[in-house]
Each structure stands twice: as C-alpha cells, then as structure tokens.
C-alpha cells in the first residue's frame, strides 16, 4: 500500500486518533462478494479439457482402439518416476500453490476496492475506495497551508500525510466532516499527520 516517494519521516507529528462520534455507529451490512466468473471460466475450461480428453481416450480403448500415445506416456512416467524425482516435486509444488490460490479465491470475499454504505430502505450501496479519496482530496484542496497531501484509503482507516504549515488538527476536523458525509456502514478511522511539521502543532 505504500507508494513511492514516501516523504513521511518518523519525526512527523501525529494527531492522536480520536474516538469517532457516537452517532456514527457501525451498521451490519453483508459484505458484497465477487462472483469470480473469469477465474471460474479458466478453471472450468481446464477441467473440461482434461476430463474430455480422458473420456475420449477411455471410450476409444473400450471400443477396441489402442490407447493414445500421450496417455500411455503419462502412465509410464507416473509408474517409473519416484516421489523424490525433481520433476515430480516441482509438479507437486505447482499443484499445491495453484490449489492454495483457488481455495483463496473460493473463500475470500473479494471486491476489496468497494466499501458498503448505510442502506436506505431497499437501496444498498457501495462506494469505491478511491472515490472517498477523491472527496477528501477535493475538500483538502480548499484548505490553505497544505503544500502536499498524500491520502491512503485502507479498508478500515484513512491515513493523510500533509506537508505545509496547516494545523493537522483543523485539517482532521475538516476531513472528518467530509468523511462523515459519506455515511459508511462501518465508519473509518482518520489519522492526519504532518510529515515535516513546518509549524504544524499537534493537538
């Protein structure tokens, strides 16, 4: 998540994270899940190719034709290569990795770029994380004393690093107001710090 040009140094002053306003309590909204269609298309095609080729050859053998070269070769390799053969180990490693990735895709909800808003009646909504960043950046653009601003939007917290004489506390108040306007289902923490505290007083 850390982009290049991270000017924020350890000497920066930080505004202590305040407790979010009580009226902004979290609302339980089921997290949207990615449908995983493209990934499943790849897997389905792969399974179809393997199972289809095997079925074709098995049926061919049962109807009196000889087995294809590829199946005889694979059976021969599997019967002669031992478990500590390098290629067997490499293949097993690849299968383990691929299996882990597929299981991750099956269980992880995905859609990490989207955050749920409070529903209103029968209308639920999600907002793009970058969109929240755009709102905050536009709000900060109207403030004075900010020379450079870096906004990182996580899934639970927003970190703003600013360079300039502006007071981080007042910037934080303004940005918190803007963040409150978004009405996220689970309100985010907002940390504002000034990287090279040129006159910025923590408070």
């Amino acid at each position, binding site marked *: *998540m850390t*982009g290049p*040009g991270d000017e924020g140094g350890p000497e920066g002053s930080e505004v202590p994270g305040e407790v979010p306003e009580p009226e902004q309590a979290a609302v339980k909204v089921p997290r949207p*899940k990615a449908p*995983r*269609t493209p990934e*499943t298309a790849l897997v389905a095609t792969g*399974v*179809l190719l393997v*199972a289809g080729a095997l*079925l074709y050859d*098995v049926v061919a053998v*049962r109807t009196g034709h000889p087995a294809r070269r590829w199946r005889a070769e694979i*059976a021969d390799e599997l019967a*002669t*290569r*031992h*478990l*500590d*053969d390098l290629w*067997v*180990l490499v*293949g*097993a*490693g*690849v*299968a*383990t990795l*691929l*299996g*882990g990735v597929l*299981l*991750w*895709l*099956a*269980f992880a909800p995905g859609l990490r770029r989207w955050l749920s*808003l*409070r*529903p*209103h009646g*029968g*209308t639920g*909504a*999600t*907002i*793009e994380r*970058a*969109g*929240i*960043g755009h*709102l905050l*950046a*536009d709000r900060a*653009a109207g403030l004075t004393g900010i*020379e*450079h*601003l*870096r906004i990182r939007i996580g899934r639970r917290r927003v970190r703003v690093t600013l*360079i300039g004489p502006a007071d981080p506390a007042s910037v934080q108040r303004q940005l918190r107001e803007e963040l409150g306007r978004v*009405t996220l289902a689970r309100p985010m923490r907002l940390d504002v710090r000034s990287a090279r505290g040129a006159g910025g007083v923590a408070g």
Partner: protein
Amino acid sequence: MRRGTVNRTLLGVVGAVLLAVGVLVLAGGLDLYGRLGVDPPGWWPLTSPDQPVVSARSRTRWVGESWWWPTMIGGLSVVVVAMVWWLVAQLRRSGPTSIAVPTPGASGLRLRVRTRALEEALEAGTSVLPEVERAGVRLVRAPGHPRLRGAVRLTPGGDPAGLVEHFETGPRADALSSLGLPELPADLRIRVLQAAPTEPRHWLSRRWRRHPRVE
C-alpha cells in the same frame, strides 16, 4: 442457487483436490514423515520417497472389476457435461428479458414489461438526480425476485449518502409504484470523480495533480 455460490464451489473443490494431491506428493517426496517422526497409518498413500507416483499395480488394481469402467466413464461424462453446462450458462444474458407486472383489478389479463424499458426509465431517472455524472442500471436475476444493480458516477464533491436517498425516493419509488411491484431491491455502485486542481501550488504537488495519490 446463486451463480457466485456455484462458481465458488467449483473453485473450492478443484483447489482442494490440487492442494491435497500436491501436499501428499511433497510430503512423501521430501520424506517429511520420516523427518518429523510421524507414522502414517498403513493405508496412507505416498509415504516413501522411493515409491513411484502411480505404480502400474495401483493403476490396474480395479481394472478387472466389473464396476470400474462404467464408473470411470460415467464420472468423466458427468464432469464434462457439468463444465459444458457452466460454460453455456455464461453465454446467456444475465438478466430476465421481461418481468411480470401484477394486475390485481383485471382477471385474465397478464402484463409483462420488457426489462430494457424498465432499465432505461430508471437510468433516465437516475441521470437527472443532483450531482450524477453518469448512471447505468441493470435488472439481474436473484433468488426470489429480480434486483436492480446500478453503477453511478458522481461529479467531484458529490454526496453519496444523498444519492442513495434520492435514488430510493425517486427512480426506485417511481418504478415500484407505477408497476405495482411489491419488492425491487437495489444495489448501487458509486464512483466519485476528482476535480482537477486548478494550479500547481508547489513543485511537490505536480505529481499529485497528474495522478491523485489515492490508493
């Protein structure tokens, strides 16, 4: 069953099989059992690094049985048919082409509204809401009743909460009342545009202007 559930089940099953086979072969090939002092039960496969992956004996163990070939061919056919069914299902349009409209007053009259007409009406209604730059609405299948799925782009500084409220009381309420539908839940996906800063305030901010540093 929802499409996402089907997809995730397929991914999970294939992933679990690959992972299990890979871990078994790795454990046997690297002799993890001997190194860790674990003594697997007698039926446990692939325990010694010196044994072949699939020996000719284990490959032909059941070939003589009468049930082997029918089971093999039947199982493979089921897998092939299921995969073909899945791939063909992706080609269908994801939503219904029309939805039934209740006609409580008139018996013997059945009304259907084309999905595209409803979508266009909702899109037009959403586009004129305040601060909306662009809007697209789709009607998708869902368990029980269809759902609306909207993608909305707001102008810089737009108000997401206001959009949700306006959509709920505006286009969605209109569609519900004019069609007399009992239920039509909606999901909105909201993007917000960023205003381009008018002038570079500092040489450091040049980078920020070109690419908003938002992650």
